[in-house]
């Protein structure tokens, strides 16, 4: 038998629980309590409204460039809701919804996006990594965290986020391979939002799915409708349970869409049509989930209106608070902090030089 089949045909499944109209598949519906369902809905609305507010703030020149998440709320919140506060989150740079769920302050996000290091301050007990900008470079960190957790005989798991573009990077491959070889508790959550700035998925890969890449590494891979929060949650919950019980890593491809620009510095009209975007807007994860919750009888017009105004207030308060806090920041000398545990002599000298120079600048301004 010169051509013996040694790897049986690989099959990749795609999971959807809510259809485009928000109708649920009862057989697949995950068992999520009402309180959590409403919390998920609340964070979806919060993430959407906050995203809109951030775009507006950027357009007004009140914050710098930032990457919006609109359209990816379900793909982020469904996944991150499946881990515990004591688990670890390793985000890329487009996971605001996941970060909000984990407790990152809105004011903190505004401050970071306004170019102040203080926006990176996180509590000592935080199990979340800061955002990572170089594409895919954060993925190996998740493997190290998971390795360490297992070494310390903890049952913590690590959830790492990245986009479709990241799957072209070497660090994605290396991290997937390491995680599978070491069988560490990592959940790889790919936000396949179809675009890496101007490059469509078809230019990242010839694979029919990203999920099938998992097969080559020897780990389970699943594709889910990333605009269906129940499907994302169900897939994540299964992956988390497997990781926690020693079953190793899982790759989850969330098929979603980057409805807005890559960052506020990007103009998507240069490379994609409004029609394509409109088609995805009709698959809005927020509306779909809302329809489901209404049908379930746990959400109505009055509750939605109440929630909307509560969230508007929360965002306004956060913006006010952040802008007030930022008035107390901006000491240039802060830039020398946290470079090393203890400042080396050369750095102390350079800091003193800058202090003198800035003082001299100040005197010259006074003079004028």
């Amino acid at each position, binding site marked *: 038998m010169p051509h013996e089949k040694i790897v049986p045909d690989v099959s990749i499944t795609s999971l959807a629980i809510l259809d485009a109209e928000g109708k649920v598949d009862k057989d697949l519906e995950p068992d999520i309590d009402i309180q959590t369902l409403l919390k998920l809905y609340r964070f979806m609305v919060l993430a959407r409204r906050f995203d809109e507010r951030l775009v507006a703030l950027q357009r007004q020149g009140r914050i710098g460039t930032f990457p919006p998440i609109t359209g990816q709320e379900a793909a982020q919140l469904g996944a991150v809701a499946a881990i515990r506060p004591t688990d670890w989150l390793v985000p890329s740079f487009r996971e605001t919804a996941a970060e909000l769920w984990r407790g990152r302050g809105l004011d903190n996000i505004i401050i970071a996006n306004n170019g102040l290091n203080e926006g990176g301050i996180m509590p000592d007990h935080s199990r979340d990594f800061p955002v990572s900008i170089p594409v895919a*470079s954060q993925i190996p960190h998740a493997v190290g965290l998971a*390795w360490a957790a297992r070494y310390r005989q903890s049952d913590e798991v690590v959830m790492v986020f990245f986009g479709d573009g990241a799957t072209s990077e070497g660090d994605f491959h*290396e991290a997937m391979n390491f995680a599978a070889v070491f069988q560490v508790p990592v959940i790889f959550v790919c936000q396949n939002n179809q675009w890496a700035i101007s490059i469509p998925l078809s230019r990242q890969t010839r694979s029919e799915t990203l999920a099938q890449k998992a097969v080559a590494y020897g780990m389970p891979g699943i594709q889910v409708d990333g605009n269906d929060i129940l499907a994302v949650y169900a897939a994540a919950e299964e992956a988390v349970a497997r990781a926690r019980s020693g079953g190793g890593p899982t790759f989850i491809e969330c098929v979603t869409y980057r409805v807005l620009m890559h960052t506020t510095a990007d103009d998507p009209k240069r490379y994609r049509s409004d029609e394509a975007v409109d088609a995805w807007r009709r698959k809005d994860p927020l509306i779909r989930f809302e329809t489901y919750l209404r049908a379930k009888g746990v959400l109505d017009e009055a509750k939605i209106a109440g929630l909307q105004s509560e969230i508007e207030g929360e965002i306004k308060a956060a913006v006010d608070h952040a802008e007030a806090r930022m008035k107390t920041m901006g000491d240039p000398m802060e830039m020398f902090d946290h470079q090393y545990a203890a400042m080396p002599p050369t750095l102390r000298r350079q800091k003193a030089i800058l202090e003198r120079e800035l003082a001299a600048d100040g005197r010259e301004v006074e003079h004028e």
Partner: protein
Amino acid sequence: MNKLTMVQALNLALRQEMEADDSVIVLGEDVGMDGGVFRVTDDLIHRFGASRVVDTPLAESAIVGMAIGMAAYGLRPVCEIQFSGFAYHNFHQLENHAARLRWRSRGRYPVPMVLRAPYGAGVRALEHHSESREVYWAHTPGLKTVIPSGPRNARALLVSAIRDPDPVVFYEGKALYRAFREAVPEAVETLPIGQPQIAREGSDVTLIAYGAMVRPTLAAAEALDVQEGVKAEVIDLLTLSPLDDRLLVESVRKTGRAVVVHEAPQSFGPGAEIVARLMEGAFFYLEAPIERVTGFDIVVPLFSREKSYLPSVPRIVRAVRRTLDQG
């Protein structure tokens, strides 16, 4: 005291730190059963098991990326990159994350990891196995670059590097691995990172070197003393970055002359920074232009020509004579 090679001294440091602290983990390619291609991790897997001496797949970026995650969790990973010529694969992990995670997280996630790698020429190796590119790391804020010059300080500095709260790139001159033995005490010794040492006292000229270049520099100082009565002071940097120049400046203010020796390419090399520091701190004390004896701005030649490439004792001696002939 046992007389150890640098390989044995480094092995001793790893063994003792692993015994003292179960957060110390060794990882890399062939570090387990093989004991590392230079045997620096020899026998550690038998003492501490495969859970602490981790043979990884062949991928430098993931080795360092994984170490960053381990360190952020609270472990003290010591990763071995088999040759520094392969460390470019992990360049971005050091530059973008190891050196910045403490900064980015405002102190929440320090990265107490060590990256060990053999560097330098002189052992008749293949292409990519002879480079001296330590400035890549020394130029990165947030990293520390430590380069020992012999068995005893290698052991002490590796212990300090493992205990250091910040990421340390630890370059081991492969020409030093088995070149000579030194008495190394069994009791744990440390050396402060960021502090150069006077390797030989003198008053006529200051010679500044580090790593594998310290031996030829000391030999040059000895030859100058024996042949001409010239008393050269030799400073061993031990830590390239952060560079504490106070000892250098103090010495050159005393001698008025300086020669910097390194095998890295000359342009934008460590010598350039050292000379600039001396100009800032000792310009009015100088009696002669500062000389540099260095590698050249070329790919390290294949090994038949590497002796011509490397700074030699006669080259160093002649450079010293040139500085002495001035003024």
